[in-house]
C-alpha cells in the first residue's frame, strides 16, 4: 500500500495539541515547577529540590486531612454502594413507574454542586433550617456549625443525597441487562431471593459496580465545593478534606511550593488507588 504523504494534515491535529497543552500539560507543569522551587513573587525562583515533598509527607496537618479524606470516602462508599443497589433492586422494571423513578433519581445529579452545598447549609441550620430545627425540636442537640460530629453527619448525609443516584442508575442498568431466563432458572431451582441476588444479580452487576465504585471513589476523594459551601472545612479543621486543605494552603497562606507538592502527592494517591483497585477487579475477572 502506498502511503500518501501530506504534511497539511498536521493542521487538523494542532488544535487538539494546543487545547490539551493549555488545559492539561501546561497547568500540570506549572505545578511541577512550583513544587521544586521557592518563589518570592516577581518571578524570582530558587531551587529547593524535594524539600516541599518531604515537608508535606512529614507534616501532621497533611496526615490529618488525608486521614479525614480516607475516612469520609470510606464511609460514603460503605453507605452509597449498598444503598444504591438496594434502591435499584426495588425500582420497577416496566410500566409508568420506570420514567418517574429515573427522573426522580437523576434530579440530585443535575443540581450544581455549590447549590447542593447552599441548600444543605440552609436546610441544616439549627435555628431556621428544616432539618436542623426539627432535630433540635426532637430533643437532639444538633448544630453542624459548632459540633464536629454533626458537621460530619451533615456532610455525609448531603453526599449520600447527592450521589447515591449515580450508583442507583448504574446498578439499575446492570440489573436490566440480566435476561429474564436467569430469574426463571433460579425460580425453577427453587433458589431463595438472597441466593438469586448473590449468585445471579451480583455477579452480573460486577462490571457496572466496579465502575460505580471507581467513580464514587474519585469524586468523593476530590470533593471540594459541597463541604466548602456547607461547613467551610469547620468547625476548626474537622471537615477540611484534602482539597479544602490544599486550597487553604495555596490561596489562604500563599504557600505555593508546599501546596504544589501536596497537589502532586494528592494526584498520585488518586492514581494509585484507582490503579490498584482496577487491577484487583480485573484480575478477578480474568480468573473467572
Amino acid at each position: 500500500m502506498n502511503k500518501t504523504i501530506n504534511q497539511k494534515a498536521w493542521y487538523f491535529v494542532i488544535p487538539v495539541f494546543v487545547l490539551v497543552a493549555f488545559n492539561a500539560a501546561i497547568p500540570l507543569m506549572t505545578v511541577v515547577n512550583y513544587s521544586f522551587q521557592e518563589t518570592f513573587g516577581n518571578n524570582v525562583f530558587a531551587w529547593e529540590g524535594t524539600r516541599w515533598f518531604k515537608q508535606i509527607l512529614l507534616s501532621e496537618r497533611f496526615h490529618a486531612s488525608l486521614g479525614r479524606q480516607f475516612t469520609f470516602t470510606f464511609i460514603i462508599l460503605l453507605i452509597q454502594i449498598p444503598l444504591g443497589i438496594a434502591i435499584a433492586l426495588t425500582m420497577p422494571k416496566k410500566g409508568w413507574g420506570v420514567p418517574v423513578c429515573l427522573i426522580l433519581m437523576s434530579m440530585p445529579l443535575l443540581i450544581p454542586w455549590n447549590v447542593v452545598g447552599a441548600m444543605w447549609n440552609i436546610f441544616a441550620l439549627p435555628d431556621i433550617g428544616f432539618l436542623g430545627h426539627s432535630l433540635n425540636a426532637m430533643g437532639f442537640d444538633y448544630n453542624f456549625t459548632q459540633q464536629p460530629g454533626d458537621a460530619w453527619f451533615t456532610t455525609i448525609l448531603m453526599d449520600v443525597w447527592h450521589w447515591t443516584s449515580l450508583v442507583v442508575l448504574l446498578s439499575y442498568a446492570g440489573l436490566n441487562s440480566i435476561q429474564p431466563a436467569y430469574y426463571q432458572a433460579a425460580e425453577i431451582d427453587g433458589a431463595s431471593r438472597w441466593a438469586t441476588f448473590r449468585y445471579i444479580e451480583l455477579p452480573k452487576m460486577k462490571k457496572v459496580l466496579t465502575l460505580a465504585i471507581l467513580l464514587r471513589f474519585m469524586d468523593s476523594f476530590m470533593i471540594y465545593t459541597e463541604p466548602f459551601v456547607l461547613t467551610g472545612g469547620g468547625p476548626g479543621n474537622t471537615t477540611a478534606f484534602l482539597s479544602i486543605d490544599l486550597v487553604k494552603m495555596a490561596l489562604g497562606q500563599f504557600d505555593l511550593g508546599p501546596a504544589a507538592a501536596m497537589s502532586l502527592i494528592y494526584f498520585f494517591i488518586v492514581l494509585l488507588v484507582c490503579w490498584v483497585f482496577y487491577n484487583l477487579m480485573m484480575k478477578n475477572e480474568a480468573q473467572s
Partner: protein
Amino acid sequence: MSLELKNVEKKVGIDTHIHPTSLKLEKNTINVLLGSTLAGKTTLMQIMAGLDKPTSGEIWFDGKNVTGMKVQKRNCSMVYQQFINYPNYTVYENIASPLAITGVKDDEIKQRVGKVAELLKLSAMLNKKPDELSGGQQQRTALARALVKDSDLILLDEPLANLDFKLREELREELPKLFEDRDCIVVYATTEPSDALMIGGNTATLLEGKVIQYGKTLEVYNKPENLISAKVFSDPPMNIAEITKRGDNCKFTDNNVQWKSSAKIKDGTYKIGIRPHNITTYKEGNNSVEINGKVQISELSGSESLIHFTNGNLNWVSLSNGTQQKNVGEDTKLYMNTDEFLYFDQNNRLVNNG
C-alpha cells in the same frame, strides 16, 4: 404420568398469546413444539412449567390439577436458548445446584453429578467456570443441570438455536438418547422442521398461538391435517398451487402441466402442496411430470441444490440431491413427483389422506 392442558388460554391485555388449547402429553415421550418465532412456544412452555398462569383453563399433571401451583413445587426443569448457568459457580457447582437447594446429601450429589457429567462429556471441565467454556459446553452444563434433577417434566426452549452448525448437529444427535430411559415428559420447542424430524417422538405444529396439529412426528409430516400445518412443517417453504381435477386428470390452473392422479377425491378445484424435495432436476418415482422453469436463484450447499424458478406467474422452490449447477435466467426442465402431492380442499383440509 401425563401432562394435560385443558382449554388453556393466555391473554395479555387485549392480545391473545395462546388461544384455547387442549393437549395431552404422555409419559416417556419427547414432544416437539414446532412453530416460528412468536407462535407461542415459549408461553406454552412457561404455562406447562408453572412460571406463568393461564388466563383460563386447567393444567393436570399425573391426575392432579396443578393450575396455579408454583414452579418450585412441581418437579420440572428447563433449558433455554441462551446458555443459562450461574456465572461464578464452577460447572460442578452449577450442575449440583438444583440438588443442593433441595438438600440432597453430598455423597449422592457427587455421584449423580459425576454420572450426568459423563453423559454430557463434561467430566474434564467440572472445575471450570461457565465463562471459560465454549457455547456448546455451556449448553451441555445447562442440560446437565436439567437432567441431574430427575424431573418429571423437562422443557427445552430452542436449546440449540444459539450454537454454531457443527455443535448443533452433534448435540441434536445426542439429545434423544439422553432422554431414552428416563421417566419423564420432554417438551422441545424449535423453529426448525428438521429438528422435529431428527428428534422424532410427537410434534405439535403451532401458528399464532394455536396448536394446529398434534401427533406422531412422521404422521404430522406425511399427513398434515391441513395446509397451515403442512406449511409450518416444511423448510424450505412448501410450494402451493391451485389445480383442477377431472376424472383422473389433473392440471394446474396457471399452466398446462398435466398428470394422472390416483387420489380418490371428487372432481373440482384443489390446492396442492408440494415439498421442495419433490421437485427435482431428475426423475423420481414412477409418476413424475415435467415442468419448465426459468431459474431465479440457485444455491448449492454441497450435498443439496436449492433452485428457485418461475413458471408462468408462479414461483417454485425445488431441492435436488447433489450439485446441480444452474445459471440464473437459464431455462430448465424439472420433474415433480406426483405421488407425493398433498391435495387440500377449499377449506385447506387435506383430502388425499388415504
